[in-house]
């Protein structure tokens, strides 16, 4: 197998890794905000449920969570869902990352001085306006470094998709390496992750810079 066929074969895996990455971000970034806001709910039951969810997610391996999402419907409820592998995979990732993002958002929201809320209240902003116009923009700026860390972890975590036999770049690398008795696929995979994270750092750095116009 030439280097270029090896690369072409693996590029399918790269696209699949990228799909998991993007879908996870698209789902978990907004879901994390919902979770963060629910954690501040007036209702004790809601707060307790959210706390339990966050502890379970943080206290168990993502790999295990993926298996539960995939096998759970059948073993727990006797359900047989067609084409469940990919949805289970994305659900597992989204629900996992939403918990981590929620904690980051919560920390950001709580770091905004109470004086900001009071100034907005006296000026007559509604609660929604206060959150959207005054609080959220400041939260976004404050949490950027933590979000960047989490996104970089996600790039590397996409390799866990192999748990559900999803052929992302790393599982392909293992297969090709075994069949071709070559170390090259691992190098290609390594470069892929490294470049992906380089792009992530570059983009996040740009966003942080764009938010640097105030302190």
């Amino acid at each position, binding site marked *: 197998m030439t280097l270029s066929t090896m690369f072409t074969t693996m590029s399918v895996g790269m696209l699949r890794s990228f799909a998991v990455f993007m879908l996870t971000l698209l789902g978990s970034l907004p879901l994390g905000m919902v979770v963060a806001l629910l954690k501040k709910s007036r209702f004790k039951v809601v707060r307790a449920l959210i706390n339990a969810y966050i502890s379970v997610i943080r206290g168990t391996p993502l790999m295990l969570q993926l298996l539960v999402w995939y096998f759970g419907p059948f073993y727990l409820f006797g359900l047989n869902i067609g084409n469940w592998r990919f949805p289970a995979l994305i659900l597992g990732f989204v629900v996992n990352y939403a918990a981590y993002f929620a904690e980051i958002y919560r920390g950001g929201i709580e770091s905004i*001085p109470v004086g900001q809320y009071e*100034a907005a209240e*006296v000026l*007559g*902003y509604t609660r929604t306006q206060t959150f959207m*116009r005054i609080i959220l923009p400041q939260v976004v700026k404050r949490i950027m470094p933590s979000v960047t860390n989490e996104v970089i972890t996600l790039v590397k975590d996409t390799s866990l998709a192999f748990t559900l036999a999803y052929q992302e770049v790393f599982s392909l690398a293992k297969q090709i390496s075994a069949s071709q008795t070559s170390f090259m696929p691992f190098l290609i995979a390594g470069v892929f992750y490294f470049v992906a994270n380089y792009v992530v750092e570059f983009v996040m750095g740009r966003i942080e810079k764009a938010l640097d*116009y105030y302190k």
Partner: protein
Amino acid sequence: MIIEMNNIEKHFGDLEVLKDISFGVDSGEVVSIIGPSGSGKSTLLRCATFLETIDGGEILYMGKRAAHTDAGGHAVYVHQNELRRFRSYCGLVFQQFNLFPHYSVLKNLTDAPMHVQGRSKEEAEETAMELLGKMGIADRANAYPYQLSGGQQQRVAIARALAMKPEILFFDEPTSALDPELTGEVLKVIRQLADEHMTMVVVTHEMPFAKAVSNRVLFMDGGVIVEQGDPNEVFENPKEERTKQFLRVFER
């Protein structure tokens, strides 16, 4: 009367912070509130501006009731929507300025008029520039709060409150967070507003300022108004022992 607060009660847990306080401000009047720390001055202002809810008594703005005590002895407020109208009657300037750091000076002044009061951008910006001119900081319209000195930030905060065209403006120790050399510029703009007969209530420790600017001085201690009256009377001939004691500390 712009505002009338009758028999106001407020407690935090077991701590009674306001004990049966009654207090009103006429249009164009400037009232100073003095008193030791912990006497309830901020709480009174926060109740007047609806940042805190009272536990008893009534609050009226422009003769209309915003809150009263029902037959069961509980303070009840008008509905949320109506409360917004009452909020628009009053402004509050904080000790810590509380400007919005992510907005330019100009946007700090135009955002609420546009998005709360529904004014047009042109109108809001015109009012804002006029106010910044009056505050002597028109050239900083495009700066961000962190680029300004404390004195400038507080002047922006005053302009932001005025941009809402309130009937009455409350100040909670507007110069206490400032370096001594910066207090003058803030006191100057408040004095200027007094000359224009802006209705104001100022909590302050600047006694000469309070004496010079206000029509009435109120001395608070332990959640009650101990003494009030003409500034010359209260400062020169205080009747109550507690007032005398308090003022003695401020004499050099």
